[in-house]
């Protein structure tokens, strides 16, 4: 089976928050929870970059390691999921996660933590696949339908990549090579030698 991953290309992300909206809409995410978010650095300054952050579906997931009731499990695809029936809302996973993926609806009596909610890689949960119950608790199960997470599918600039880790890294590797080659061409003049003209690099993020 494939081992799935997300990867966000900082050279392509334009902080449109389309992924955030797509995720919320597709999964009917509980109020106050954002399974995915876009973080921007140097907002409005030269060198501004954005990245879309969500659960990274770690191979050695800290959330699963610290969970006192052991409600996490990893699917054959390497997707880290959890069982809301067993979850007690202690919040330990949110302390341990480096990406801030596990979040809690503030629905308790003291607006304390309810059942944890996190990105499922659009793979639903432990309930019967495609059932109303699964959708109500975890959102869509697009993986079972042979589709990829909607956030990545919706991404206008294809900055957010999702899928088999090997394919994702192949795509990204190709992008890096292309960008490097463009730069290389302008510096060393290969393109000029081969094509007889300098490439126009105006507006490129790389320089």
């Amino acid at each position, binding site marked *: 089976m494939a081992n799935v991953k997300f990867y966000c290309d900082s050279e392509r992300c334009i902080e449109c928050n389309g992924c955030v909206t797509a995720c919320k809409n597709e999964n009917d995410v509980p109020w*106050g929870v954002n399974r995915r978010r876009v*973080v921007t650095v*140097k907002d409005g300054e030269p060198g501004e970059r954005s990245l879309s952050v969500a659960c990274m579906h770690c191979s050695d997931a800290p959330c699963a390691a610290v969970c*006192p*009731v052991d409600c996490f499990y990893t699917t054959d695809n390497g997707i880290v999921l959890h069982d809301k029936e067993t979850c007690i809302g202690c919040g330990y996973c949110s*302390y341990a996660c480096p990406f*801030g993926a596990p979040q809690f609806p503030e629905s308790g009596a003291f*607006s304390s933590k309810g059942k944890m909610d996190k990105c499922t890689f659009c793979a639903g949960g432990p309930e019967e696949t495609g059932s109303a119950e699964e959708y109500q608790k975890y959102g869509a199960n697009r993986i079972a339908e042979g589709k990829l997470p909607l956030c990545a599918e919706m991404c206008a600039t294809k900055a957010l990549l999702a899928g088999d880790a090997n394919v994702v890294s192949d795509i990204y590797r190709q992008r*890096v090579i292309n960008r*490097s080659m463009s730069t290389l061409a302008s510096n060393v003049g290969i393109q000029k030698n081969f094509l007889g003209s300098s490439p126009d690099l105006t507006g490129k993020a790389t320089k």
Partner: protein
Amino acid sequence: MDALKWSSNKITSFNFNLSLLACLLITLFAIFSFSPAIAAEDKLGNSNNTVTQQLGVKSPATDLWRAVRQREFKGSAGLSSSSQVKSMGSTEFINIKGQEWRNFRMGQLVPYAAYLLGGVLLVLALFRLIRGKIKIKAGRSGKKILRFSPFQRFVHWSTAILFVILGVTGLLLTFGKSGLIPIIGGKAFGAMAGVGKVIHDYLGPVFGIMLLIMLFTFIKGNFGNWTDVKWFFKGGGMFGGHASAGRYNGGEKAWFWVAILAGAVVVVSGIVLDFPYFNQTRDDLQLSHLVHAIGSVGILAASFGHIFMGTVAMEGAYESMRTGYCDENWAKEHHDLWYDDLQAQGVVGAGASMSGSAVAGVGAVAAGAMLREPSSNASGSTDGSAHVSGGSSDIDKQGLMDTGVSSSKKTPVKTADKKSASSSSSQSKKTGSSSTSGESDNLKKIEGIGPKIEEILKGAGLSTFSQLSHSNPDDIKVILNDAGPRYKMHNPKTWPQQAELADKGAWDELSDLQDRLLGGRE
């Protein structure tokens, strides 16, 4: 020409291969751009410095990820990050503290807490097996001394029950995964821990309130002193020998302060975790959990010792918190200084008219409150006229007794003063002269007076009931104050009144009066 062309081609292809190599390296560290990124750059920088410079294709993504990895967005580099999503830590890419917290909880807290708590239980079990139950050496005397008032016991047991519930639910979260899930399964344990977590969340703040009440209820007598130091050096008398102790021994005082101080730390950190909507960051919560966990384990370990000593380890200890009364011999053996104090006050010992029903003690708040109620059968021994003559100004001895019996609390001492000043001055002179000839009474019959105070009073010339009955409580107070600071606490307010009854030989009335007094006080 061909050769030249060939060689130039070769050079270009060489360059091309080199650039491909560089690209590959860059790609690699763009993808795995965490710690290896720095190493890869070093390698490039050292061996292929010129190539890197020449190509200048360092991917900006690499810089970004390196900065993310090194958390340059907080502070040092002055880089700021923002997000349209507004929630806890939403502007953070990576929180490295999460990993530290994970290591603490899984690698340190769970195993070390298990070793510590298990070790304490083991030591206590061994102590019990080797040393056996600590018996009351002299056996039970059958006489009971009031040790804890109902309110004190209410505070103790409320706090104790809350503590046990919080301790069990807390330990469930800590050790359930390794201890219970393999036995009862994840689903069942999840349901159990879910209920436990809610109980823990709700009762935690209540425990905090009880802890505060506990502080004020038991702080008196729990300040350390030199006796406690000696107590600790003697190991509390656990290994033979005798360690003197007052109302509370060194161990009890230590436990009191551990419970209060560590308890306060646990409660405060728990409240930070319990109500996570005051803009606490994840770092705050991680730190709070760390403090909460360490504090809880410490207080639990100490509580094992307290519960052990209070129940299975020592005969006669549990009943004093259960019923409020301890056996006199238990008090003599374990709280000798306290017992001495009670004796000095005449509450216990030879001088006190102790019986199973007439029990008095110090610090008994509720018992004192009970005394304020007029007691109907207390006046049973006085004759019927007592009820009628209670309020009259011309009081004879019968009337005086009655005012003491009835609910008008203010009158007894005043009337005693008045009496000593006016009505029976002749009697006073008579008994005064007789006492100088060496006559003396057993003043210990008066509740509040023990052998030591009796000595002091006799030293001051008050040897008979008659003399005592005609003296002013304030004067007695002066005598006591002169005798030393430890007698300051004694209140002689009722002594002249008691002495008068004794002088008259009205022992039944005196006994009735003393039944209503608390350690010789009203």
